[in-house]
């Protein structure tokens, strides 16, 4: 996709999250003005006058469509409001959590890249060999295991039975290992297959045979003629992997008690904290579009053939 269509997509994502959040707000019981006033001034200072001033200020008098436009206007001005639970600004909360989530996601991606592609390369070089076949079996099993199930197995085996690592928590380096490993194993299962297929395809091409015939060593052939072809599907897939990662983060953070954006999202859903849901959803959706834009650009660098 090109830049304008990505921008359009970005706008659409904001519209959809805003619309869904508006519906969420509408479906909550009670008067919105009273609820927001309670969030702002506390339940002790809450009276009809405070609710009326909130109503006048936020344009809650306006009906239907007009009210929705006010709501969208707030989003476009990047005013996400305050959390209905903590009373803290949504931005402050998210900035705090996003860092935690990004470091976890980064660690997971890093570990998965250390495990998956090298195994895939080895398997692809000898397609049909024992490594290839056992990798296929392991990858299929891993893909059939939901991430929360993998987390469960790792917690029971490594922290409860062996007592090697803490089952939950945040702050120490060893807290990283289990959640990052859980996320990484799922990602590695996919990237290993992808790299294996790409590598197997490359070894069957004429240019690969020719490189071997003209006397290049295995390593030289790989660096000059293999790497780029293997990297392209891997990079293209990173965009999709990011979705898996985000979904995983939502579940994995809740299981391991990691104070990130996914954990915050689940809590916000549980307590019907709409501004927080909207804020986290916006960050996740916008982040996805931006990452995909980066992947598009990177893919074009790797394979200039598709550019007209």
């Amino acid at each position, binding site marked *: 996709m090109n830049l304008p269509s990505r921008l359009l997509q970005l706008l659409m994502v904001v519209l959809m999250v805003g619309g869904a959040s508006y519906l969420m707000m509408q479906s909550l019981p009670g008067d919105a003005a009273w609820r927001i006033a309670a969030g702002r001034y506390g339940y002790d200072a809450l009276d009809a006058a405070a609710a009326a001033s909130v109503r006048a200020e936020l344009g809650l008098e306006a009906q239907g469509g007009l009210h929705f436009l006010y709501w969208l206007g707030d989003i476009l001005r990047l005013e996400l409001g305050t959390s209905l639970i903590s009373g803290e600004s949504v931005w402050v909360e998210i900035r705090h959590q996003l860092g935690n989530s990004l470091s976890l996601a980064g660690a997971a991606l890093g570990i998965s890249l250390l495990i998956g592609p090298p195994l895939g390369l080895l398997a692809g070089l000898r397609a049909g060999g024992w490594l290839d076949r056992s990798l296929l079996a392991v990858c299929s099993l891993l893909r059939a295991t939901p991430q929360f199930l993998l987390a469960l197995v790792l917690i029971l085996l490594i922290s409860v039975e062996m007592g090697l690592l803490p089952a939950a928590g945040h702050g120490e380096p060893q807290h990283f290992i289990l959640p990052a490993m859980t996320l990484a194993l799922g990602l590695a299962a996919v990237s290993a297959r992808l790299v294996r297929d*790409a590598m197997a395809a490359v070894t069957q091409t004429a240019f690969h045979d020719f490189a071997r015939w003209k006397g290049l060593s295995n390593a030289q052939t790989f660096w000059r003629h293999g790497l780029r072809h293997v990297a392209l599907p891997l990079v293209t897939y990173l965009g999709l992997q990011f979705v898996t990662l985000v979904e995983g983060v939502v579940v994995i953070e809740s299981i391991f008690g990691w104070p990130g954006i996914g954990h915050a999202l689940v809590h916000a859903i549980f307590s019907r904290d709409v501004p927080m849901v909207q804020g986290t959803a916006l960050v996740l959706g916008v982040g996805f579009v931006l990452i995909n834009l980066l992947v598009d650009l990177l893919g074009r660098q790797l394979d200039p053939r598709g550019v007209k």
Partner: protein
Amino acid sequence: MNQVVEGLAPQRVEAVRRPRLDWPLRRVIGAAMVASLVLLALLGNLVIPGDPLEQHLYRALQGADAVGVSDAGEVITSAPLGYDHLGRSLYHRLVAALGLSLSIAAGAVILAAFSGISLGLLAAGRGGWAERLLSLVADSLLALPGLLLVLMVSVILPSTPLALWLGLSLVLWVEFFRLARATGRSVLASPGVEASRLLGFGAWYRFRHHLWPEMAPVMMTAMAFGMANALMAIAALGFVHVGIPEPTPELGTMMVELLPYWREAPFALLTPVLVTFLLLLGLLLMSGSKARTSTAADTLEGARP
């Protein structure tokens, strides 16, 4: 004359070659696994009747028992898989949970496939702004993580099963839409469809005889894959306490409930885990991984979507 026909033969074979839904061993095994679990969900309660919510607290976390009469004189229904931490029959909870998850997932896949295929063909047939608008909506939905969409729908709608059904359909239709649009674009422009239209055949005939045979194998793969994803999402949400509310039996909730007792009753925890795993493995075996691996070959040939 004969020679001319022979010379043409390969081309003609190429032209009418259609992707067929073949049944390699892997797919048969997967289908058998899924079918047996579906049978368990359908017939489990008829074979051994029981109530998934009925408690026998004095039997909490105990193993299987036979039909009999307790000391107090009440009839104990048999629990072939033992009891959970609140003394409820694991077997009946499992059967109920399987039934619930399978019906939500199947309902979501059917709704998603129906709307995705019709909208995809509409986009491919009409083209222009209709296609652009639909594609934009589909792409933007793709940007939002599926679990997030399902969670947002669950806040808007009052009933959780309804929210899961609609939310999952909202996530899954995009895949069917993209597949149907891609196939539709090439097939609708083919001479065969044009000939059909000129001969006066209706839209339904053209769908049935030109479009569907072309789409069927891909759609079947997408359906099995979508079903696995839906089941995984339902269980994952249950596991983090935002899915189907307790005490309704659900696979993810069962696991998280039984987790604290895993030392005392490892088998009790293992049953929902094993059932979920087998169900997902069966569906993934059914779907096959061809759809995923084709991307590598495509990029190598320089083809871009």
